[in-house]
């Protein structure tokens, strides 16, 4: 018995090291922590929704993405925005899984970042760009909410930004993102039912309106500056 225990102890060493190595190779993407507590967006987004949305839905996208890439080490080394821009070059066997789950990872990482308690209003260059490209924040919100209501089924509504700072409103189904065409997302809202069903049920319009109360305009302003400097990733 003792000898077997010693042998088992020795044998476990290389196995343990191998597991570490494999995990390091195959787990390049990880769930970013929420930048605020799960109850910080109450009453507009409830704590239970945040817990599930971040801890279950987003975590599942990360896990599925890493699993899909575990035999594709080169692809797994790419920054997420590059992986998504090169979906067409991936083996067909993993392309749809990476599209759905890589898109889900990028979209949700952006989503947590552009929200926060407190609200505020756009300022500086960002405010000027919103005036120039949408005719003001009220008009942007009106068009954004209408676009969000028109998404049939699951999807997202985004404001994109190009390298010159020009803004545009787009929607995408499921977990697709403008990153897949090499674009950049300034901010966006999740209109999958899981994003609002516990608090708003079928009333997506009410959710879209309330969501503006938790947009972190300071963060969006930073993303705008980063995009113009060519430094915005996801």
């Amino acid at each position, binding site marked *: 018995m003792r000898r077997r225990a010693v042998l088992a102890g020795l044998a476990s060493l290389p196995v343990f090291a191998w597991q570490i190595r494999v995990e390091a190779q195959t787990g390049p993407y990880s769930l970013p922590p929420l930048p605020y507590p799960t109850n910080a967006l109450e009453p507009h987004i409830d704590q239970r929704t945040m817990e*599930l949305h971040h801890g*279950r*839905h987003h975590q*599942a996208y990360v896990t599925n993405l890493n699993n899909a890439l575990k035999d594709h080490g080169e692809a797994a080394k790419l920054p997420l925005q590059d992986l998504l821009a090169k979906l067409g070059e991936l083996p067909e066997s993993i392309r*749809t899984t990476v599209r*759905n789950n890589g898109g889900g990872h990028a979209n949700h990482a952006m989503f947590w970042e552009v929200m926060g308690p407190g609200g505020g209003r756009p300022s500086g260059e960002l405010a000027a760009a919103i005036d120039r490209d949408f005719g003001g924040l009220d008009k942007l919100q009106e068009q954004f909410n209408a676009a969000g209501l028109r998404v*049939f*089924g*699951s*999807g997202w509504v985004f404001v994109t930004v190009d390298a010159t700072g020009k803004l545009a409103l787009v929607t995408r*189904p*499921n*977990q697709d993102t403008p990153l897949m065409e090499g674009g950049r997302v300034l901010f966006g809202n999740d209109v*999958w*039912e*899981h994003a609002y*069903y*516990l608090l708003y*049920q*079928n009333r997506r319009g009410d959710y879209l309106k309330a969501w503006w109360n938790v947009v972190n305009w300071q963060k969006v302003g930073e993303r705008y500056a980063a995009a113009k400097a060519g430094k915005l990733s996801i």
Partner: protein
Amino acid sequence: MAFTLPDLPYPHDALVPYMGKETLELHHGKHHQAYVTNLNNLIAGTDLEGKSLEEICRLSFNDPAKVSIFNNAGQHWNHILFWKVMKRGGGGKPGGELLKRIEHDFGSFEAFTEQFKTAAVTQFGSGWAWLSLDGDRLKVTKTPNGENPLVHGMRPILGIDVWEHAYYLDYRNRRPDYVAAFLNHLVNWEAVEQELHNALA
């Protein structure tokens, strides 16, 4: 004749605990009702007004000018079938002609349930999983959003709604648990057999 919301064939609490009262109230009274209202508004005064629901599904499918009509018509059709194929104390195994055909076309009833579960769980985003008659054979498929096997020339006899609104209040993110409960406790196999006979007729 405008389309109307059919009554649920059971009370809202009939499917508790596998499908909650609030889920059925919202799903039937709000979601399904909205599809009916939107469909009626969208076809009013167009060449589709007065056509049957199935004709509208087929005629609007893949027509970029009729996307919203198709979405709402498809969802009206899909939900009509969905309410019919559930009951309190359902689930388990069918019998008769239906079981014979399932065993013949899938190898076994268990092989069918595996295919059906996989289809329902892997439909990414909103959509449906189906058992349909395709010519003379039964087939499992899945479709996104409001699409259904009708527009692919098949005759659906069983469908499960895997939009999140169908299960989020009762199961949160756990879609596999919802699909298992549907098969084990909700499917009205007599109604599915009736759909099979209608499809064969």
